[in-house]
């Protein structure tokens, strides 16, 4: 890029870049988001290149140098605004899609729950759960055994049967524990 020497030349060049950017942006907006992004980045590059190539006629002239610094600041702020607008739009679009994404995730979670039921059913987990739910009944039987008098023949017989039942049930629980 060539250099722009003196305030007038610099101001003219900055005006040209701004007008060109406006026109290009309008055209890009009717094309695509990608095109808008391309124009924005290119405009940003031109603005920053402008600041790198703007020169006072005389480096020792503080007034002219400060005028050119102000033009540079204008170009820099415009470049920053262009980039920030680009980020804002991109993040905004991501945010807009979050609700739909959450809905899709929810559908998948529902299907996962359904799959878990399917797998449990294939693994015969229902039977295991039925056996687990019998634990309370067995505990009640154990308690009943304790109140039976072993010295009374009939009660001793019931006690033996309860003991056998409890042991068989415990074996059964161990056997089905592999079902997960």
């Amino acid at each position, binding site marked *: 890029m060539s250099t722009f020497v003196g305030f007038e030349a610099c101001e003219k060049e900055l005006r040209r870049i701004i007008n060109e950017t406006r026109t290009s942006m309008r055209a890009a907006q009717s094309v695509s988001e990608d095109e808008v992004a391309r124009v924005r980045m290119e405009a940003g590059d031109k603005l920053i290149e402008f600041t*790198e190539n703007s020169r006072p006629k005389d480096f020792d002239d503080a007034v002219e140098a400060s005028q050119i610094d102000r033009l540079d600041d204008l170009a820099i702020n415009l470049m920053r605004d262009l980039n*920030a607008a*680009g980020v804002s739009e991109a993040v905004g679009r991501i945010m807009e899609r979050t609700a739909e994404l*959450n809905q899709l995730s929810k559908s998948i979670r529902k299907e996962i729950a359904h799959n878990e039921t399917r797998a449990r059913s294939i693994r015969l987990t229902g039977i295991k759960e039925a056996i687990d739910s019998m634990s309370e009944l067995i505990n009640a039987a154990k308690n009943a055994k304790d109140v039976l008098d072993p010295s009374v023949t009939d009660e001793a017989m019931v006690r033996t049967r309860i003991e056998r039942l409890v042991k*068989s049930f415990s*074996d059964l629980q161990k056997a089905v524990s592999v079902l997960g």
Partner: protein
Amino acid sequence: MIRTRSTGQHFVVFMVALVWLGGCASLPDLSSYTSSTIRLQSAIDSSGQVVLASLNSAKKALEAAKATQAATYKKHAGDFERHWKARVAAMDALVAYARSLEEIAASGRSGSKSAKAVAGAVTSFAESLGVVPGGQIVGVATDAAAFVYGQIAIIRAARSLQESIDATTPVLERLVQVIDKDLDDARKAFVYASDATKKELRVDYGHTKKAWEVLVDRRRERLERLHLTLADEKVSVVSALNATEREELEEIERRLLAVEPEWLRYQTKLAAIQDREDAGMEIISASQTALQDWIHAQKDLAASAGQRRPARLDGLADAVVEIRSLVERWRNL
């Protein structure tokens, strides 16, 4: 006797039918599908981290420049981080879904074992209650029931897989489309933010660049006026110059030497930002490729279940393995 033979024949026919059906139904090995889904989840997560780091770098650069836009980048970084979590959560759901499919297949494979455990245990329990007779008859019946249920479990698992995959594939296709668009926008945000950081650096070093170029121009001008070239000056033809001319050139040289370290520092910093940008872009692009590979694998899984052929899941691992090494490179930059 006739009745027993008839029952036996029916049993044999039933078993043959089940073995045939069981042979037709096959359960795919879904381990590579699950592991690729886990890695894909990590790739999407990493892409988010790359973008977030880029937004934070831009914020930091603008804060240093005391620019008003720093607050805008801070807000965008916060919004992006919060909303990207929904993408990671969606990927979590995909992983859980893959695992649930694997669980169905595993249940089908262990059907015979499950049936044996239940049948054996229930029989012993019933025996202790005096409900069924013990001995060999029960043992044979248990084995046969376990075998039969093993075949049924395979068929049920294959059917469950098919049903689940058929029901979920359209949802997954849409999910992948959304995340793909998100990655497109994430890339745009990333590039804008990285560009903002680079341009802030150019602004920071703008005076250095200008000073460097002005001095180089002045030197060339002086040398041209004296009908000399830079090469002449370097071989010290300056002896041909008068004292004022020599002093002027020496002053320019002194100033150039003073600016040079700053100029080099600028170039080093710019190259570092560019390297991170290149590495980040590769991660986002590779994530998009992996996402497409994943949905193709999902569709193939759906088709293969219907056509009773193994799914083609081998290529799936390559794309996601590549991302892991890209992320490592990006982290080391």
